[in-house]
């Protein structure tokens, strides 16, 4: 029996069935984006709060567009204009948003666990749009949809994730998701960013130091951005990174012609990826963006649309009596 989702806080706690369900739900929305008139009335009258406490362009626009195409209104909170800058706590900010009665909240925050923290204190569905270095579940779902479309399955694929794994929430969500489908996951990047504890995240995860070995036989390559903003250690010289870990056409050949190249963006061409690979036939980066919309529409439809039939719940109010 498929358990209905209340929130989407991460991939780790989802079952394989729940993930497949979301991917299946996204299928009709993929088709929908090809229509000349891209507006549904499904969520008309609903409001989705977009609380982006950390700067974001593509994810915020993707969620906003997904909500708009479902007919929902959005309330926008952005990092730069946020009252957080004036010293307001996260809880006070989200309680203020909640008091305007949105039907769901999408949150991005630089603190790992912030979505779970507010989900325990609000009475509305919470969607994690990326929290610190923890998870970015919608990215993993859209990646899975992209791969499944091209490979027809996720089962048993050989997936290589390249780059700064330690600081990557995208990597964590992808590892959790793909591992649930029996994928063999290879992690490769500068050694200080690929600590051995990553192998304990999920079954079938291994680390490889040399990129040639990591790419050998890969069905899918996920290239991560080097996250300079999340790095507290002295950064690596770009030349060093390029020398050892840039995905070049020569290296891509080791993986074979059918290997897919994914990148969560924003991409730094010429650093982690050679421009000709980014624009090449194996690259899925634009599909990823389109599929992101479909995934986010499916989720909002499921989480926010579903709430309509349920009685208004009290936990959010209870949380304030403190």
């Amino acid at each position, binding site marked *: 029996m498929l358990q209905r989702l209340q929130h989407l806080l991460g991939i780790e706690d989802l079952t394989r069935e729940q993930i497949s369900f979301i991917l299946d739900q996204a299928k009709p929305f993929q088709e929908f984006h090809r229509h000349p008139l891209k507006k549904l009335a499904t969520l008309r009258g609903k409001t989705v709060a977009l609380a982006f406490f950390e700067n974001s362009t593509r994810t915020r626009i993707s969620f906003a567009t997904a909500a708009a195409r479902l007919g929902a209104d959005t309330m926008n909170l952005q990092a730069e204009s946020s009252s957080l800058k004036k010293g307001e706590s996260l809880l006070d900010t989200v309680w203020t948003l909640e008091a305007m009665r949105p039907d769901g909240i999408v949150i991005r925050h630089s603190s*790992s666990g912030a979505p779970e923290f507010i989900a325990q204190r609000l009475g509305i569905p919470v969607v994690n749009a990326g929290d610190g*270095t923890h998870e970015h579940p919608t990215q993993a779902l859209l990646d899975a949809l992209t791969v499944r479309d091209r490979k027809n399955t996720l089962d048993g694929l050989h997936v290589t994730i390249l780059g700064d794994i330690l600081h990557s929430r995208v990597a964590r969500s992808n590892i959790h998701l793909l591992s649930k489908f029996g994928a063999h996951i290879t992690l490769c990047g500068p050694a200080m960013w690929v600590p051995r504890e990553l192998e304990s995240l999920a079954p079938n995860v291994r680390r490889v130091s040399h990129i040639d070995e990591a790419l050998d036989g890969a069905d899918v390559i996920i290239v991560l951005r080097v996250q300079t903003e999340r790095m507290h250690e002295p950064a690596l010289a770009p030349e060093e990174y390029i020398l050892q870990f840039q995905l070049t056409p020569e290296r891509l050949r080791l993986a074979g012609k059918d290997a897919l190249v994914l990148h969560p963006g924003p991409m730094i061409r010429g650093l982690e990826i050679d421009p000709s690979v980014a624009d090449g036939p194996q690259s899925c980066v634009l599909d990823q963006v389109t599929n992101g919309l479909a995934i986010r529409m499916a989720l909002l439809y499921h989480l926010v649309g579903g709430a309509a039939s349920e009685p208004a719940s009290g936990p959010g109010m209870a949380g304030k009596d403190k």
Partner: protein
Amino acid sequence: MLLIKNGRVLDPSSNTDATLDILVDGPRILRVGPDLTASHVEIFDAGGMIVAPGFIDLHCHLREPGQELSETIETGTRAAARGGFTAVCAMPNTQPVNDNASVTRGIVERSAAAGAVRVWPIGAASVGSKGESLSEIAAMKEAGIVAVSDDGKPVATARLMRQVMDYCRALDLPVIDHCEDRSLFAGGVMREGPRSIRLGLRGIPAQSESICVGRDVEVVTLTGARLHIAHMSARASLEYVRAAKQQGLQVTCEVTPHHFTLIDEDVRYDSHYKMNPPLASGEDRAALIEGLADGSVDAIATDHAPHHPSSKDVEFDRAPFGIIGFETALALALSELVRPGKISLLRLVELFTTGPARVLGIERKIAADEPADLTIFSTDQVWTYRTSESPSKSRNSPFDGREFRGAPMATIVAGKIVYRR
């Protein structure tokens, strides 16, 4: 006068374990013996209970002066009394920092006026605990400090530590260090390991602590001073302390109840699991329990660290470190150490009484003419800890709602019952 009857007296100083009565006259013990009688006395029937020397907590934060929103000497010592503590050592990281005699005197006076139990201040090792120059340690000693520490942070450099130790050796004061290599600590919020990787929280390696313990032990070989390691959490740190003890160096250490109870795998996105040092690995916890059993660890200390709910009810990485601990210390020691058979009841009493007393260079025993500081507890009393019922101003405990077996039944300070269950 107060007559405590029928209690099982456990006194590690004399290895006493016998049913004895204790007659208290004013602030001192008058007589200890079987079947004492006296007329016109208040009688406390301690039948079925343990009567121990008064518990000493070597490590707490009372937040006064300066952070009275989180705790005061009054509220903190009332919580301490409920935990069975008759004396608590207050760390100097108040505002202002207790780095001179006038702050020390203020704490001493305030404690005399409002404290439910004895407060023994610890002075800062360096001015403002900034790690630059020595504070007025001799003047603070005259005003009443029992040790020095820059707790909250380590004594900054080996060179300063050498000076502090040399100076304190002459003053016969122990130096307490919060051991942490700041460069390895590097902004971490929990112990580095599989759990920190899974949660995406910045990790602090165990070596951040043990490197500093190693440094401090080396400086002891240079100075011959008394060193006490605060809230020790790592197996490797314990190895340094063991080796130092074997060499005959005066190195002691304490372990907190949360470090012998919880581990890093218990951490969730709840700042009640955020403390410094962070919850360690299961292997470390096992090593600490072994040290508590074999005598390598000298004391259980709470590191009671109150933080107002509004400062703790935030994102994990933004919350301050620390939890409150007075009221759960004994019950956790009973449930995690005694009941599973790791240590005896007498050893538990030692870890709360004569152990910490030795660190401070004082005696603790139940005998005629000794101060009547006594802790009476039950090993069977079933109760549920609720932070909402605590006299503390703060609520930051991961043990809220936990059911315990074993509790303090009465806390007696200078002959007065300051807490009675």
